[in-house]
Structures are given as structure tokens and as C-alpha cells.
């Protein structure tokens, strides 16, 4: 009887993330897989989905038949990589996001707080997106390796390590027949971005085309990640980074909050950012590139911007309908009584904005509390769980559908911006950020009307 108080934990801790590495990541220990383990792993993955998939018709997929057709291949798998391909093929039959296998090695290979420098994760200090058939640098982190090498936004990446523009183009061509352009861009940018990450101290050879079309070659020594490495449950260690800034435009002060993932380690900085920007004329929340994370964080943080009890959306499991309830945040991080931020809120999205970020952006948009700028989001917005499988891998599997206010569904279509402001090479080369610029202009306009 006393256990009821723990009930909401399970729901609150379900993840809404798309941050899983590709299922065919190479294993560093290619020992022959025990067939019994392979079968147990396959069966466990199949059963997990069988017991929790929210639609009991599996949207018309004959789930037992899928098992029967693929189980023999699982039994014959000689490596974890091979087994992952079989399980991924099984999960792909569902045609939904948030069904993936995270290699066990991926979750163990990076250790948060490790003492050895050579083990620290690092990156090249730049972000990339797939735009109009090219991998473009969309952001250069001040003080990072790319910045030090003189690389600038708008430059096109021709090669980074083993990744070449041609390989990306080939992959895009193959993917284009099976998924929409937005998902292809998501995959292409994700793959290219992975080539710019590794272990701090490693060198990545890059070749870029600058604004004048000249080829520029650089050897980038990856620098330690700027954010904090955090672990949460079965998720692999991940960088958590919260950035805030203040802009001035037309006499108005505008706060900007950007963060890379919804993990609890970000909460103190996110709450502090709202407290510090409470007096501004508007707040821009930059969710571009944010793949999601812990679903329960979205309604919690939304409470800083909503002055009435409301809901960001409804999670529909096989048995229950659970609301992502927004409780207005009326106490600051310092314990002082405050009111939720009442000024204009703009949210920036792009094709790499996924999952919890889509629930947050789409939910506030549907409630009329925020205006969305940028590009349509990823369209991968399902709450999921991540149990460990018998072979040590982690199964990411959605356990609920997600419906936003007014019945809007983001899985598939994504969050469609109120003001489309896609990134272009010309804008990047000119030092402009179309989505941010449009958001700032809107906040200025809103204030002039008040």
C-alpha cells in the first residue's frame, strides 16, 4: 500500500531521446557470439516490444510472423554486430521512431569523469548540417579546434577523416528511396557530425570548401568537450551543455538559452538561466540539434513559461493515458517567489530537433505560448524505455504514442515552424542566422505592440 507514492517515477523517467548510435557500430571485441545468447537477446527484444507496443494491432504488422521470419537469422548470427542488424531489421518493420539497439560497447566505452586524458571524449568544435546536398558548417564554437583553425560557418565539408562528401552523397542517394528528405538530412548530418568527434587529442584531417570556393585542408586536434559528461540510467555517458546569452535589438533585450540534451544534469543551469533572463523582453530557446532526452523534463521546464496548469501532451500506453502536466513554476532556484516568464517565447528548431525537444516545442506552440522558427523538426517523438538485453546491448523501444494539445501528432510530421527560416549557405557565409534573426525580429515586434 505504501508503494503508490513511487508510481509516477516510472512515467517520469521514460526517455524521449533519439540519441542512439547506429546499430551496426563495430564491436571492439569481435568474439564469436554464443548462439544461445543471440537467441535470448533476439527473443528479449521481440518480447519487450510485444508486451509494450501501445497499439495492439501493431499498426497492421504481423509481429509474431516478423519474429518467426527473423529468429533463424538471429540464431545464426556470429557477432553482436550481425545480431544487431537482425534485431534492427525486426524493429524497422514497425516503421516507428525510437526503436533501436544501442551497442553495449557504446554505453561502456566512454566513462564520465575518467582521469586519463586519452580517454576523454572530444570534438572539433563545429556543428554541421546537410543543406542543399552539402554538409555545411553551421556553427563554430569559439575557442574550439575549428575556430583555432580559422574554419567559418557556411564552409562546406568535403572530407573529415574517413567521411567524404561523396560517401555522404552516396548514402543520401540510397536513403532517399526509403525515407523523406528531412529524415535523410537528419541521418546525413548525424553521420557527418560523428566524423568530427572522437577522443580528445586525436587528430582529424578535414578538407573544406570556403566561401570563395577554395579548398582548405586542416588537421584538427580534437579538444575536450566543453560540457559536463553525465550518465543517466542505461544511457551512455553524454555531454550536457547549457548556453545562455543576451542580445540587444531595437532597444530590446532578448535572452537566448540553448542546450544540447534533456538530461537531469542540465536542470540547475536551465532553471538558473530562466531566473537570470526573467527581466528580458523575450526569450529564444534554441533546440536546434537537441535530440531529446528525459521526457519528464519537458513539462517541468515548460512551467517556467506557462502561468496556468496545462498539458504539453498525452502519452498513450497500451493501458493508460498520461498527461505531460505543466505546473507553473512560481519559485526560483534560490527559493524566492516568482511568476513564470510572461514575455514572448520563440523556439528554434531544425531537422535535428527530436523527441523531448519536439514535445516541448510542439506543445508550447499548440498551446499558443511559443512561436516556432527554423525548419521542421525530426518527427521522432515517442516516449521510450531502454532495458539492457542479454548480450549487454541496450534496446531502445517506444512504449507509447504521443499526442499534443488539440490532437496534434509530431511522430512523422514533426513540429512545423510558424515562421520557416531554413539555414542557407549564403546566410551562414554572411554571418547570419535566419531562424534566430527571425525570432529576434518577432520578439521586438511583440514588444512594440505591448
Amino acid at each position, binding site marked *: *500500500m*505504501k*508503494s*503508490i*507514492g*513511487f*508510481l*509516477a*517515477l*516510472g*512515467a*517520469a*523517467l*521514460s*526517455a524521449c531521446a533519439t540519441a542512439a548510435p547506429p546499430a551496426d557500430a563495430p564491436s571492439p571485441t569481435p568474439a564469436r557470439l554464443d548462439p544461445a545468447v543471440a537467441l535470448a537477446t533476439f527473443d528479449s527484444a521481440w*518480447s*519487450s516490444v*510485444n*508486451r*509494450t507496443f501501445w497499439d495492439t494491432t501493431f499498426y497492421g504488422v504481423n509481429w509474431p510472423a516478423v519474429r518467426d521470419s527473423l529468429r533463424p537469422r538471429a540464431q545464426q548470427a556470429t557477432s553482436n554486430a550481425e545480431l544487431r542488424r537482425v534485431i534492427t531489421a525486426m524493429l524497422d518493420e514497425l516503421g516507428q521512431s525510437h526503436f533501436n539497439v544501442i551497442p553495449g560497447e557504446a554505453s561502456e566505452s566512454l566513462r564520465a569523469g575518467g582521469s586519463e586524458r586519452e580517454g576523454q571524449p572530444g570534438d572539433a568544435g563545429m556543428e554541421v548540417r546537410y543543406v542543399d546536398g552539402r554538409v555545411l558548417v553551421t556553427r563554430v564554437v569559439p575557442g574550439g579546434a575549428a575556430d583555432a583553425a580559422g574554419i567559418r560557418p557556411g564552409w562546406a565539408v568535403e572530407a573529415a577523416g574517413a567521411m567524404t562528401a561523396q560517401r555522404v552523397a552516396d548514402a543520401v542517394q540510397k536513403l532517399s528511396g526509403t525515407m523523406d528528405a528531412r529524415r535523410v538530412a537528419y541521418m546525413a548530418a548525424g553521420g557527418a557530425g560523428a566524423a568530427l568527434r572522437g577522443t580528445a587529442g586525436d587528430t582529424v584531417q578535414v578538407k573544406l570548401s570556403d566561401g570563395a570556393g577554395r579548398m582548405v585542408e586542416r588537421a584538427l586536434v580534437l579538444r575536450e568537450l566543453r560540457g559536463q559528461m*553525465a550518465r*543517466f*540510467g*542505461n*544511457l551512455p555517458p553524454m555531454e550536457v551543455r547549457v548556453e545562455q546569452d543576451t542580445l540587444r535589438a531595437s532597444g530590446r533585450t532578448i535572452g537566448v538559452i540553448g542546450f544540447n540534451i534533456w*538530461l*537531469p*544534469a542540465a*536542470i540547475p543551469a536551465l*532553471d538558473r538561466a530562466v531566473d537570470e533572463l526573467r527581466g528580458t523582453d523575450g526569450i529564444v530557446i534554441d533546440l536546434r540539434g537537441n535530440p531529446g532526452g*528525459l521526457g*519528464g*523534463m519537458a*513539462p*517541468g*521546464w515548460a*512551467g517556467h513559461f506557462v502561468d496556468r496548469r496545462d498539458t504539453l501532451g498525452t*502519452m498513450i*500506453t*497500451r*493501458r*493508460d*493515458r*498520461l*498527461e*505531460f*502536466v505543466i*505546473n507553473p*513554476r*512560481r*519559485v526560483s532556484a534560490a*527559493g*524566492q*517567489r516568482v511568476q513564470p516568464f510572461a514575455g514572448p517565447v520563440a523556439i528554434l528548431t531544425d531537422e535535428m530537433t527530436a523527441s523531448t525537444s519536439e514535445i516541448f516545442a510542439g506543445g508550447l506552440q499548440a498551446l499558443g505560448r511559443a512561436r516556432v522558427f527554423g525548419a521542421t523538426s525530426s518527427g521522432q517523438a515517442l516516449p521510450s*524505455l*531502454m*532495458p*539492457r538485453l542479454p548480450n549487454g546491448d*541496450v534496446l531502445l523501444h517506444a*512504449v507509447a504514442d504521443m499526442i499534443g494539445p488539440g490532437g496534434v501528432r509530431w511522430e512523422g510530421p514533426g513540429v512545423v515552424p510558424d515562421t520557416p527560416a531554413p539555414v542557407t549557405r549564403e546566410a551562414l557565409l554572411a554571418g547570419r542566422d535566419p531562424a534566430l534573426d527571425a525570432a529576434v525580429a518577432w520578439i521586438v515586434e511583440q514588444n512594440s505592440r505591448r
Partner: protein
Amino acid sequence: MSFRTSPLRVLALAGAALTVAAAPAQAQTLPTAEQVVARYVTAIGGEQAISAQQFRRVQIEMSMPAAGMSMTAEMMQARPNKAVMNIEIPGMGSMRQGYDGQVAWSINPMQGPKILEGKELADLLRQYDFDANMRFSHMFRTMETVARTEMNGESCVNVRMVTESGDEVLNCFADDDGLLVGAVVKSSTEMGQMESTITFHDYREFGGLKMPTRTSMSVMGQQMEMIVKSMTTDPIDASVFALPAEVKALQQ
């Protein structure tokens, strides 16, 4: 991780069908709900033993294998219904909840502080009632025995209990010793109504009362295990139950 959703639904449906078919016979053989809960109160130590306790401090280890998480929790209670619960979650911080006799509250890192109202408040007060284990008729609007069944490998009598707000608990009391074997609970949370299946194991005596030292709960396809590490009945300072500063700020 245990996924019992589908099998449970099948079992529940099968159980319901059996209940209908066997109702006339069972009406003769099943004890009344009052008899079942009276036997339960005796089994855990009796009203006198329950009444003798003024305070409880329970320390619990919790795990959610599906999420790869282990947590610690501490629950402190004082008569008649003051309580504070603190769950420490690695990587997140502490989730707290309490009642000082007047205000029920919760604080968690994701949602911030909140004062509980409505059904959430009613649910919490029912949990925090110090005599929750013997005042079933006070806490539930109706109680009725519905079937003899098997849960957790034990033959038990299902007693359906319905709260004032309409939430339903199906408690199953063991035939052999009268102890609570498990429950299917539909309860109100901030997010909505959730159904959970709970089984109780390994009863031990603490301060003259028997309580389960291992509890398994299945909710939303996730399995949660709770192990009682200690339970004491020593006095707890009243300041423990005072409202946290963040909750006081909410009242301003």
C-alpha cells in the same frame, strides 16, 4: 525488466470470466471483506501493536532494471499522518514529498515545488495515514470480496476496495496466513490514472509489526523492486515534517 502487461490482461480477463461463472458458489465460500481485513490486521501483529507505534522510519533500496537505475529512499512518518519521503536518484538528485498535517507537497528537480490538491492530495493522505494497515473501512468507501485466486504463487482472496474518489484497489490476502500477497491498484497521479500490479514478499517483524521487506511493482511496462533495509520506531524530531522553504514560498 518484467513485462507483464499482456499476460496480466489475459489473466485479468480470464479471472473476470471465472468470477462471473463461479459467483453463486463463491458467495457461499468466500469470507466477507471485513473478515479478511480483520484477519490481516491480526496477522501483521494486531491493533494493539499498530497502535503502540508512534513513529516509523523506513529505509529502502529501489531499482528499475529497465532504466538501469538504482535509488535509495527514506520514509518517515508520525501519527496521525505526518510524513516525509525522500528518493535519491543518481544523476538527478532528490525527489521529495510530504505532509505536515496541513499541507501536502512535492519537490522534484524536474517539476520544482508543488502543493498537492484534489485527488492527488486524497491519494497521498490515504498513503500517509499511520494506521493505513488497519483502517481499511475508514479509507475505502466500499469493500467486497470478489474471488479466490492465486497471486505470486499463493492462494488468496481478492478484496475490491474503492476509495471515495472512485479509485479501485484489488487487494489479495493469503489464504494460509492472512497476509497481503499483492494488489492491483488504479491510482490517481498528476499525470493521470495509472494501473500497477504489486506483489509483497518476505514479511519480517519490525517493532512488533510484520511488513513485507521486498515489494515488486509493475507499472507502465516497467518493473520496480523495493527492498526494505531497515525500519525503526524511534521518535522523529517534529522539524523533519516542517514545510521546506520552497513550499513555504509557494504559499506566499
